[in-house]
């Protein structure tokens, strides 16, 4: 049986398969249908300082091989999480990665400081795809300086592994990866959802209450792979690959592109045990292909050298 362990900074995961933020509740929401002890870790729904109601309906629409969501980061807030969820999560034999969202740098800091006082959190993942109210709602994650500042400030507050979750809705995602690596992040997670929109041509209205939403699922896998590969060429810190991972083969592709671990998102809605099946599948894949340690696959993509710039014309 192959060794599936991987490391992200000081964090060792028993295997590289995590569930993605916002796609598995707080981790303990469907015990009947999934065995979280089998996976490498749980990334919680994004936590903000105060509870957030989230967006009005409709929040969900299906698209071709994908879906749009406009949840609005509805969450119970960090205090209720600590009081109501963390005690249960502590009982699990898997890494607990707290995902943090906020509308100001200060809020990011406050949420992390609050969590630092509690036992049972293995690492942090920072969702920077949030509007900065101080900057008139400019998305933190689309601005290198703001992304750098969040990383710098949070780095000072914790010794635990710090993952910055990057948005794909930028020109050069590798620029953001470099910046956060420079500020001492232990790794980057990508991709978050792509901005998308769906229209009801009969009613002539947007299908989502917020007009646009976040696109996820198999449709975005090619984009996610390209972003992960771009970042893998740019930074040395570990990458957590996310985007349209539905099965073992998809997970392997992300590892080959340079991801040290992966997160399963939308697939959880279709099959709450998708991530557990991928852990099994990954073990089989390694054994069948003579891979002793899953880390052998990380960045193992064979690329002919001399793919010239002009060839990069599409």
């Amino acid at each position: 049986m192959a060794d599936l362990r991987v490391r992200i900074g000081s964090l060792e995961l028993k295997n590289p398969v995590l569930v993605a933020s916002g796609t598995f509740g707080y981790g303990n929401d469907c015990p009947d249908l999934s065995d979280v002890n089998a996976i490498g870790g749980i990334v919680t729904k994004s936590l903000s300082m105060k509870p957030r109601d989230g967006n009005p309906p409709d929040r969900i629409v299906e698209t071709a091989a994908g879906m749009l969501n406009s949840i609005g980061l509805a969450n119970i807030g960090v205090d209720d999480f600590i009081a109501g969820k963390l005690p249960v999560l502590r009982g699990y034999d898997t890494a607990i990665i707290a995902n943090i969202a906020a509308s100001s740098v200060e809020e990011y800091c406050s949420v992390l400081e609050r969590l630092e006082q509690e036992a049972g959190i293995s690492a942090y993942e920072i969702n920077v795809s949030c509007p900065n109210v101080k900057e008139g709602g400019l998305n933190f994650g689309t601005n290198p300086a703001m992304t750098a500042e969040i990383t710098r400030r949070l780095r000072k507050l914790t010794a635990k592994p710090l993952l910055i979750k990057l948005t794909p809705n930028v020109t050069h995602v590798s620029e953001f990866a470099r910046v956060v690596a420079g500020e001492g992040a232990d790794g980057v997670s990508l991709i978050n959802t792509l901005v998308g929109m769906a229209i009801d041509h009969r009613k002539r209205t947007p299908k989502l209450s917020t007009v646009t939403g976040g696109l996820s699922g198999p449709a975005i896998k090619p984009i996610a792979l390209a972003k992960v590969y771009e970042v893998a060429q740019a930074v040395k810190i570990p990458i957590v690959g996310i985007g349209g991972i539905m099965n073992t083969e998809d997970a392997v592709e992300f590892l080959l592109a340079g991801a040290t671990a992966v997160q399963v998102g939308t697939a959880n809605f279709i099959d709450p045990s998708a991530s557990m099946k991928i852990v099994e599948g990954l073990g089989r894949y390694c054994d069948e292909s003579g891979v002793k340690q899953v880390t052998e696959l990380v960045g193992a993509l064979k690329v002919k050298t001399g793919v010239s710039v002009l060839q990069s014309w599409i």
Partner: protein
Amino acid sequence: MNQGFFRCESVREIAPNIYILTLHAPEIAERTNPGQFLNIRTGDNFIPLLRRPFSVYHRDGARLQIIFSVVGAGTKILASSSVGHPLDVIGPLGNPFGVSGDFEEAILVAGGLGVAPMPILTAELKKEGKAIRTFLGARNETQIVRRHLEQVSVATDDGSDGHRGTVVDLLRNWLPGAPKRSRKIFACGPTPMLRALSLLAGEFSVACELSLESPMACGIGICQGCPVELRDGAKKYALICRDGTVFNSNDVVL
């Protein structure tokens, strides 16, 4: 809550574009209560990507039935499911109607395929010894499905069967003359109908439970995708899939 593959025993078109699909699903059947739903994966392709939710229509031992119309890709595939084909189903999901409690007569109100939960609801209400009256609304006579129901009155948009107009008007006409009894309304159907019904229930101060719909990604409470606004209380929204689908009409803003 259960996930598994369950055999499709039959699919029949019982009225123009109205299908009844029968599943052999003992593990789910034994735990299902009226108003709960199943979340069905219609195929292993990524189109449709998400599961499709359907209320449990009727139960007969280990057999569960759903009733549906073909409106898009998922229901199209379901309607053509071959007998014996195993379907990937999660259920039962959601919270059921409150069938017990101190009311004498249950008033079942359904618009269109909102009739879906009524047969299994009727069966359980009878076990509770409740009197039952059923009010069905539909576009026209062909879309009225009466099976397994009690004391049915009908309203159709085109008047081709029963009262011409909405099922809520039909109820509004009936209530004043109805014998004094403690009643509870159980309803399922399009939002505008449920909105009108809530008002009516308020006027006549009759208890009223509504089964609501929403686009859903997970159906099990992990995506936060199916909010309904709450009238008051700490939280602004409840989740239809987890906190519902059944709500007291006074608690929600439609």
